[in-house]
């Protein structure tokens, strides 16, 4: 089993990776005036697709998919009980020929266009705007809370794409002497680690506080 030196080295390796990106927010916003029995909460987010790698991939025509699952739980004496769930997808793709970002929301197998936008920022705004899900509402007096699960998946993070980027971006300059070969090997290792960690999907969670309508 990995002992402390290799554990600390792995943690250091991970933390030594370049830091810095917009903070990601995913929120379940309570209904106005806490009208829990009349209105479902809204789901809002920020910064989900803001990092450079994601933007680069989108600009090259690879779609991103956001899968949402909003759950309503009832607080129980021993175990909490899942009372309702509602799921939907948002898909974002850049139309290279038309030079516009297409945003589609898929709910209950029906696709609804959220519009076409000339910039990624505008498309992000459309995706991350508050959305009130069609989840069933709690009965009066039923103590509970909402829980949101969000998976963000980018199609382009394939092995081949990663290998191509590595060869083009880091290994080739290193081989030709324009870049430190150690850096290239390190990045190759990180690529392998990302593959082993399942980095093609990012998972977020958010929830409301407990309420009694």
């Amino acid at each position, binding site marked *: 089993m990995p002992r402390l030196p290799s554990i600390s*080295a792995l943690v250091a390796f991970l933390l030594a990776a370049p830091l810095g990106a917009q903070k990601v927010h995913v929120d379940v916003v309570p209904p106005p005036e806490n009208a829990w029995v009349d209105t479902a909460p809204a789901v809002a987010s920020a910064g989900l697709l803001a990092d450079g790698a*994601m933007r680069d991939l989108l600009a090259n025509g690879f779609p991103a998919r956001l899968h949402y699952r909003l759950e309503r739980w009832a607080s129980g004496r021993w175990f909490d009980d899942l009372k309702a769930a509602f799921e939907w997808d948002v898909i974002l793709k850049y139309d290279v020929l038309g030079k516009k970002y297409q945003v589609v929301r898929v709910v209950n197998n029906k696709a609804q266009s959220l519009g076409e936008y000339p910039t990624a920022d505008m498309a992000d705004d459309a995706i991350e705007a508050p959305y009130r899900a069609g989840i069933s509402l709690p009965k009066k007096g039923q103590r509970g809370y909402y829980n949101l699960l969000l998976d963000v998946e980018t199609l382009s993070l394939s092995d081949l794409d990663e290998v191509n980027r590595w060869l083009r971006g880091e290994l080739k300059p290193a081989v030709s002497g324009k870049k430190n070969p150690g850096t290239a090997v390190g990045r190759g290792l990180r690529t392998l680690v990302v593959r082993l960690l399942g980095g093609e999907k990012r998972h977020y969670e958010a929830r409301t506080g407990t309420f009694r309508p």
Partner: protein
Amino acid sequence: MCMVVACTLPALSSAQGVDTAGRDTTAERLGLWARTSRASGLILSSGKTYNRVEGVPVLFGPVLHDSVRSAELNASVMGIIRSANSFHWDSQNLGHRITAEMRVGRGRGYALGVSSFDVMTPVEPWQLPDPDAGLAALFGHRDFRDYFNRHGARATATFNMSARSNLAVNWSDERWGSPEERHVFSVFGNGKPWRANPLTDAGRFHLAVFRANIDTRNDEVNPSTGWLILAEYERGTGTITDFGLTSPLTRPFPKADITYGRALFDLRRYNRLSPTTTFNARLVLGGWLHGDELPLERRFSVGGIGTIPGFDFRRYDPGTVDVSQCSNGGTPPPGNPAQCERVAVGQLEYRQEMPFFNFLNARPIRLRGIGFTVEPTAVAFVDAGRGWLVGPAFADLQYSSHSFPRFGTFRTDVGLGLDLGLIGVYVAKAVSSSKEPANVFLRVHRRF
């Protein structure tokens, strides 16, 4: 060259007794994503694994996806070259995986498939997921699995009850071989010898496998309620041409032509106690059911980070009855292989989220452009388990087929950990053997 990702379906069966539930939009998703992600073309992929007999297996070849009415057709012809011994061109470094499958219905439906393969397979995949095993080998020069080679063909029929639950029947004709550990790079300890990959039984086998996967969890990545159940029965018939090495009591009268029955149950239950607290349990029961003795590829063991982390993986203590690997009578074979005919493991886990550590997410940890955030959760756990042989009762190691070892003979441990979502750091201390020092270890994502 066209790029394709084999996307897993993060699916969504909702069998938790909900009063309303939105329809599963993932399994039947439409439009851009579905069309793009199912594109045909050439694929180049790592096998998402890393181990001491293969290094990285690199898969390449064409894939075809098409649909006719409600039937979906998938086919692929993948060659495999393995990075061990610097991609040396030899039979152990070359393999293939050819598959053709027709699936009718999305979510609920059925599928029929055939495949031909020449792949390296772990002996006990139930213990540890691929990422944990791969990263331990890549970074720590520790391979927590043993491997054997499967070369043959398989036909499969599957009834899908939902996107994540199914019943399947496989029939295969395959040759098993015993690969050696090779020169495989690791970040730390590179150049040191690897633990020997145990010599397993070589021969030709016909296998019929009945498998049920029931998944009612609310989420695959971070489940907080639901069941995950794997139940598997395998009937194998075959001829062993070269016997693997065993301890004396493990296989006193080796028999070349064998027929055996084997079962494995892996039950996991997830419970939410409060918005930030869960209590989860796992029970694994597996072993010989009928017929001749199990071949070495179908045997069991416990111990190590996947089962009872308070005990070192494959550790040999001279003079003690080994209820982890079921070796007896002196030094075990090289690699200290799994030799038990039956196994029982129970794991309990209490998880408490710690939102006050969320400041760690102010800047996500970034790896190759992927931002990983952390979800700090304190974990307390208890594990218990052991393996045993089936036969005339002998020295707390062998029991008759109708008896079960008393709990006092089980190996037990307790532990604490901090799960950051991406990686968890844990410490486990053996309880049943007070002399064992505490073990510190890492796990990727959750323990189970």
